[in-house]
C-alpha cells in the first residue's frame, strides 16, 4: 500500500501544515503567554455596554410610543383571553373541532377533541386558554407583517437585499435574546410574550411567501398579463393564489414558531399560562406536574400543527373541491359549528358543569408519577448514573478538555503516562498514514486534526489556531466571503469577551452533532431502505420538530437531573430529526438508473450503499448535518435552564438581569457560530453537488 498525493492536494494542504505548526507554537507558548488562551479584559471592546447605553437612551426617548403599543395590544389580548375563559369548555372544544374538521377531517377533529379534553381533565384549562389567547393574537400579527414584508421584498430588489440577511440573523439569534430588548421596551406583562412571539414567528412567513411569489411560473404571470390584468388584479388573482401553497407552509411554520415563543416567554413570568406551569414546576423539581403540563403544551403544538398543516395541504391539493358558483356550500359546516357552540353556551347557563369543568372530575396523577420516579431513582440510580458517567468520562469530557486533562484516576481509573502519550501520538500517525494510502491527503489531515483536538480538547485550544483553522477551512470550501465572515465572527466573540463561552457552546454543539449525524444517519439509512421504518419515523420526527423546545427537556430531566448530560440528551433528541430526514431523502433520491447500473455489474447491497448511494447522497446528508447544527444551537440556549454552560447560559443570565448588552453579544455569538457553520457546510454541499453534476 503506497500513499500518493492526488491532483492539487499539495497546494491545498500546504497552508494546513502552516496552521499545524502555528498551533504547536501557540500550545507550547501558552503557559508563558496567557493571552493566547483568552484576551485580558483591558483588550475587550465594550460592545455590550455601548448597546446598554443605547438601549437606555432609546427606551427613554420612545417610552411613550412603546407604552402606547403595549396598551393598544393589551386590549385584544385581554379580550381574547377573557373570551376563551368565558366560553364554556364544551363550546370551545366544539369550535376547535370544527376548525380541525375543516382543515383535515374527522380524525383530526377527534384528536383535537381528546387533546382539549385532556386540558380540562387535568385542570389545566385556564392556563391553556391563556396561552391560546396569546398565540391567537401573535399569529395574525406575525402573518400580516410577514406577508407585507415579503411582498415588499418581492417587488423591490433593494428591500430584498436588506431583508434576506435580517432573516438569517433572526432565525439564528436565540429565542431568549429576543426577549431582553422587548422586555426593556415594553415592560413586564403578557404583551411582551405576544410581541416577542410575533417578531420571532415572522421570518418563516416572509421566507415562504417570497419563495412562493418567486416560484409562480413565468407563463402563468404572462397569461395574466396578456388577458389585460392590472397590477392589482395580477397580484390578487394570479400571484397570491398561485403562491398560496407556499404561503400556507409559511402559515404553518409561523404558527408553530409563535407558539414556541409564547411558551418560552413564560420565563419572564407575569402570565398565568401553561408555559409558566411547566417552568415553575420544573424549577421546583416537581417533575410529575411539569410532565402533565408539558403534555398540554405538546398537545397544543400537535393540534395547531396539524390544523395549520391541514389547511396548507388543502391549498396544495385543492383539486378535489367542487364548487358551483352562487351556492354557499363551504359555509354550511361553519354555521353548524356556530350553532353547536351556541347550544353549549345556552346549556352552560343551566348546568354549571357545562360551564367550567368541575374540579371534582379532574384526574391529576402528578403525585403518582413523582412516586414512580422516586422509586426508579431510588432503585435504578446505579444504571442511570452508569450511563451518565460513561458518556461523560469517555466522550464528553475528552472532547471538552482533551484526553490530556480528562484521563485521571478519578474518571478513567488511571493517569496518563508519557509512554501512553507517545503511544497515542504513534496511533494517530499510523491511522493518518493508512488513511493517506487509501483516501489521500485530505483524510490524513483530518485524522491528524481530530487526533490533536481530542488530545487538547475544544475548550482548551488557544484561540489563534482555532480561528486560523476554521477560517482556512472556510476559505478553501467557500471562498473569500465565507473566510472573511468566519474571521470577523470569531474575532467579534474574542474581543467582546465571550470567547470561553463560545468555545463551550462549540464543544457542546459538536458533541451533540456528531452523535446526531452517526445515529441519525444510521436511522436515516434504515428508513431509506425500509418503508415501515420510514412510516414509523415520520410522525415521530414531525412531532419532535413541532414541539416547543423546553417540553423536550422534561423527560431527560426526570431521569438524569440537572446537568450537562441532560442538556446533551435533550439537544440530541431535538437536533437528530434533520439528520434522519435528510439522510433518508438523500438516499431515496439517488437516481434509480445509477443504482441499477451498479447492481447489473454485480455489486452487493453493501457495495451499492457505500460505493454508489452514499457518495451521491452525501451533499444532501451534509445539508441535514447543517440543519442539525442550527437545531442544536437553538436547543443549546434552552438547555441553559437545566444547567448547560456557554453562550446559552450567558443569554439566560442576561435575561434574568435584564442586561440587554450581554444578551446582544452572547445572542449574536450564537448566531455567528450558526451562520459560520451554515455557510461552510452549504458551500461544501453546493460545490460537491456541482462536482457530481447534481445541480
Amino acid at each position, binding site marked *: 500500500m503506497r500513499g500518493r498525493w492526488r491532483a492539487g492536494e499539495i497546494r491545498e494542504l500546504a497552508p494546513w501544515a502552516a496552521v499545524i505548526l502555528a498551533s504547536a507554537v501557540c500550545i507550547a507558548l501558552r503557559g508563558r503567554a496567557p493571552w493566547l488562551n483568552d484576551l485580558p479584559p483591558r483588550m475587550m471592546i465594550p460592545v455590550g455596554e455601548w448597546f446598554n447605553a443605547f438601549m437606555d437612551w432609546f427606551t427613554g426617548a420612545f417610552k411613550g410610543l412603546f407604552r402606547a403599543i403595549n396598551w393598544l395590544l393589551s386590549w385584544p389580548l385581554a379580550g381574547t383571553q377573557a373570551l376563551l375563559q368565558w366560553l364554556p369548555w364544551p363550546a370551545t372544544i366544539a369550535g376547535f373541532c370544527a376548525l380541525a374538521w375543516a382543515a383535515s377531517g374527522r380524525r383530526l377533529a377527534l384528536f383535537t377533541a381528546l387533546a382539549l379534553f385532556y386540558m380540562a381533565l387535568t385542570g389545566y384549562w385556564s392556563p391553556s386558554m391563556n396561552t391560546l389567547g396569546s398565540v391567537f393574537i401573535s399569529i395574525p400579527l406575525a402573518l400580516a407583517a410577514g406577508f407585507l414584508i415579503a411582498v415588499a421584498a418581492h417587488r423591490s430588489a433593494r428591500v430584498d437585499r436588506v431583508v434576506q440577511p435580517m432573516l438569517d440573523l433572526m432565525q439564528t439569534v436565540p429565542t431568549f435574546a429576543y426577549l431582553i430588548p422587548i422586555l426593556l421596551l415594553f415592560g413586564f406583562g403578557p404583551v411582551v410574550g405576544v410581541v416577542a412571539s410575533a417578531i420571532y414567528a415572522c421570518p418563516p412567513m416572509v421566507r415562504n411567501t417570497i419563495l412562493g411569489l418567486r416560484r409562480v*411560473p413565468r*407563463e402563468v404571470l*404572462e397569461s395574466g*398579463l*396578456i*388577458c389585460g390584468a392590472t397590477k392589482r388584479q395580477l397580484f390578487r*388573482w394570479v400571484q397570491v393564489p398561485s403562491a*398560496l401553497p407556499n404561503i400556507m407552509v409559511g402559515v404553518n411554520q409561523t404558527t408553530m414558531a409563535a407558539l414556541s415563543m409564547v411558551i418560552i416567554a413564560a420565563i419572564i413570568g407575569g402570565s398565568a399560562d401553561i408555559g409558566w406551569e411547566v417552568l415553575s414546576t420544573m424549577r421546583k423539581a416537581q417533575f410529575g406536574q411539569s410532565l402533565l403540563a408539558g403534555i398540554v403544551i405538546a398537545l397544543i403544538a400537535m393540534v395547531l400543527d396539524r390544523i395549520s398543516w391541514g389547511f396548507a395541504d388543502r391549498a396544495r391539493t*385543492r383539486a378535489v373541491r367542487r364548487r358551483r358558483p352562487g351556492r354557499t356550500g363551504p359555509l354550511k359546516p361553519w354555521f353548524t359549528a356556530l350553532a353547536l357552540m351556541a347550544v353549549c353556551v345556552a346549556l352552560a347557563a343551566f348546568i354549571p358543569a357545562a360551564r367550567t369543568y368541575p374540579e371534582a372530575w379532574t384526574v391529576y396523577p402528578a403525585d403518582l408519577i413523582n412516586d414512580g420516579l422516586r422509586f426508579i431513582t431510588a432503585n435504578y440510580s446505579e444504571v442511570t448514573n452508569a450511563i451518565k458517567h460513561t458518556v461523560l468520562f469517555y466522550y464528553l469530557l475528552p472532547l471538552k478538555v482533551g484526553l490530556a486533562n480528562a484521563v485521571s484516576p478519578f474518571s478513567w481509573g488511571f493517569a496518563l503516562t508519557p509512554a501512553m502519550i507517545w503511544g497515542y501520538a504513534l496511533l494517530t500517525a499510523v491511522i493518518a498514514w493508512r488513511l493517506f494510502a487509501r483516501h489521500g491527503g485530505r483524510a490524513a489531515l483530518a485524522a491528524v486534526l481530530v487526533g490533536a483536538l481530542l488530545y487538547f480538547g475544544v475548550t482548551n485550544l488557544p484561540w489563534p489556531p482555532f480561528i486560523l483553522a476554521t477560517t482556512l477551512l472556510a476559505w478553501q470550501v467557500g471562498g473569500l466571503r465565507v473566510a472573511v465572515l468566519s474571521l470577523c465572527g470569531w474575532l467579534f466573540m474574542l474581543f467582546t469577551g465571550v470567547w470561553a463561552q463560545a468555545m463551550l457552546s462549540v464543544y457542546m454543539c459538536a458533541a451533540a452533532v456528531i452523535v446526531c449525524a452517526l445515529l441519525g444517519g444510521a436511522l436515516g439509512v434504515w428508513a431509506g431502505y425500509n418503508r415501515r421504518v420510514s412510516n414509523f419515523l415520520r410522525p415521530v420526527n414531525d412531532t419532535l420538530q413541532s414541539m416547543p423546545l423546553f417540553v423536550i427537556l422534561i423527560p431527560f430531566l426526570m431521569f438524569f437531573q440537572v446537568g450537562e448530560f441532560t442538556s446533551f440528551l435533550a439537544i440530541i433528541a431535538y437536533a437528530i430529526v434533520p439528520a434522519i430526514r435528510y439522510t433518508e431523502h438523500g438516499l431515496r433520491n439517488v437516481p434509480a438508473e445509477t443504482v441499477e447500473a451498479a447492481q447489473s455489474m454485480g455489486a452487493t447491497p453493501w457495495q451499492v450503499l457505500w460505493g454508489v448511494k452514499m457518495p451521491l447522497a452525501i451533499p444532501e446528508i451534509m445539508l441535514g448535518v447543517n440543519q442539525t447544527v442550527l437545531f442544536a444551537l437553538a436547543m443549546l440556549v434552552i438547555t441553559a435552564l437545566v444547567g448547560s454552560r456557554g453562550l446559552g447560559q450567558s443569554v439566560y443570565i442576561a435575561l434574568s438581569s435584564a442586561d440587554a448588552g450581554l444578551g446582544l453579544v452572547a445572542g449574536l455569538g450564537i448566531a455567528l457560530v450558526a451562520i459560520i457553520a451554515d455557510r461552510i457546510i452549504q458551500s461544501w454541499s453546493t460545490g460537491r453537488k456541482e462536482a457530481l453534476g447534481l445541480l
Partner: protein
Amino acid sequence: MNAPVKISCRNVWKVYGEDPAQFFPGGNGDIEDPRALWEEFEARGHIGAACNVSFDVRTGEIFVIMGLSGSGKSTMVRCLSRLIEPSAGQVLVDGGDLLQLSDRELIEFRRHKMGMVFQNFGLLPHLSVLENIAFPLKVQNINPRKREARAREVIQLVGLEGREDSFPRQLSGGQQQRVGIARSLAVEPEMWFLDEPFSALDPLIRRQMQNEFLRLQKLLHKTIVFITHDFLEALRLADRIAIMKDGQIVQLGAPAQLVLNPADDYVAEFTKDVPRARIITAGEIADIRQTAGPCRLNRRIDAHTTLEQLMPLLGRHPEGLLVQRGGADIGVVTPQQVVRALASERD
C-alpha cells in the same frame, strides 16, 4: 394573398444588459450596420436576443416563426405583445405603434385584441377549467353570468364539454392545452399568438392538436403568429415561415419556397428530411413558358395539388399536365420537373 397587413414588425431589437438604451438613440432600430452594432454591445457586456427583426403579418394569415432554442423566437412573440419591452424598433398594429401605448392603453389593448397560448399552458392552478377560461373576462369585470355563458361557448368550440369543473392538474397535457386555447379565444381576439403550444405534448397528441388548430383557424380567421422549433410543424401549419437564428431572421417565405430554395446551409439542414413530395405543389414548379405554345395537353390539375398526388397522374400522362389556378392555366408540369424538384437536395 393580398390581405391587408395587420402586424408590422420594424427593425425590432431586444438587448439585455446594464443599459441597452445607450445603443439606440431615440429608440430608433433602423441601424445601418446591425452586425457591427451587435458586436459592439456584446463587447460591452450586453446580450442580444433579437437583432433588427422586421416582418409583416397579414390579416387572417398563419405566420410561423421557427428556430432552435435561443434563436430569439420566443422573445419576438413577446415583443409583439409587449410582455417583453423591445429595446428599439416599432411594432405597428393596424398602423398604430404598439410601443407608444401607455400602460392603461396597453391593458385595454390586451383585453380586447390579443390572445396567447403558452408552451407549458400557463393555467392558473387554483381555478377550475371554467374559471380559467372565464378569467380574461373576469379581468374585464364582466358579470359572472355573462362570462360563464361565453366560457361555455368556447369550451364547446375546443371540445372540452364535461370537464368544466375539473382542475388543471386533473387533465392530460392535451386537455390542458385545450383549456389554454379556449382561454386565449374567450375574448375573441383579432391577433392570436401561440408560443410553442404543442411542444410539450406527445407526438400523437401533437398531430391531433395541429389538425384541431387548423380546423379552428378555418372557422375563426385570426391573424396568427405561431412559434415552433419543429420545422415539419411549421411546414404543416404555416402560410409563411420566418426562420430565426441568433436573433435574426435568416429566411422568410412560403413553406415550399424554403424547401425549394433554402437561403443558406442552416436552412438547408432543416429541409433535408422534409417529405418534399407532400410540401411542394404543382403551382410552384409549373413551367409558365410552355402554356403559350400549341397546346396538345387537355388534362388539367389544380395548382394546389401536391407532388405526391401528382405523380400517379403523371404516370398515366407522361407528356405533362396543365396547371390551373383560379380557372386560368398558369403552366405545365412534366415528370422531368417533378424529378428535378424532388432531387434538388443541394446541388
